């Protein structure tokens, strides 16, 4: 089964950012950031790009896809 993992928590810590801050910058709710961090919700491509833009990284650096 394919699985998406991510390093949002790591990058958030690096940028000294709370889930609320990231949510506000991406225009989503804090619950969505929590769900993405816990790999319970796979974000849309648009949200993935927004998160990558906030951290100034590429999507591949943040999200990992395992088949």
């Amino acid at each position, binding site marked *: 089964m394919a699985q998406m993992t991510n390093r949002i928590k790591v990058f958030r810590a690096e940028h000294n950012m709370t889930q609320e801050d990231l*949510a506000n910058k991406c225009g*989503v*709710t804090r619950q969505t950031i929590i*769900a993405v961090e816990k790999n319970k919700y796979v974000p*849309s491509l648009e949200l993935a790009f927004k998160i990558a833009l906030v951290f100034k990284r590429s999507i591949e650096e943040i999200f990992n896809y395992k088949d």
Partner: protein
Amino acid sequence: MNYKHYQMIRTLIGLLIATMVMTATIINNFYLAISSVLIGMLFLFLVKSKFKKIIVDERIISISGRASRIAHSVATMLLALSGLFLILVGRDYEGSNLKFLGEVFCYIALLLIMIYSISYYYFNKKYGADD
């Protein structure tokens, strides 16, 4: 205003509307019921516009989409099956409205399927399926 305050105010307005409608029903006042619902909706709208934070995003939309699909399937199935049951039972009870009620249920189920099909067709077109 934080999210908790927003939720609290929203619940309070909901409770007030329910109480007013209940009172209006007890005293048989149609205008009081309608006006309390309208005023409540206006207050809800004002509170929502005051609360700037995002409360609906892609995850919420995805969840509500799934919930709607399940609700639609269950409601349609229940209406159709109970409609068929009432039609079958109603045949044995001449003079009762069971058959008529069953037909109404079946038509409502058909209406639900029709609305679903139209909206599916619309969104399918909107999101690029030209073939």
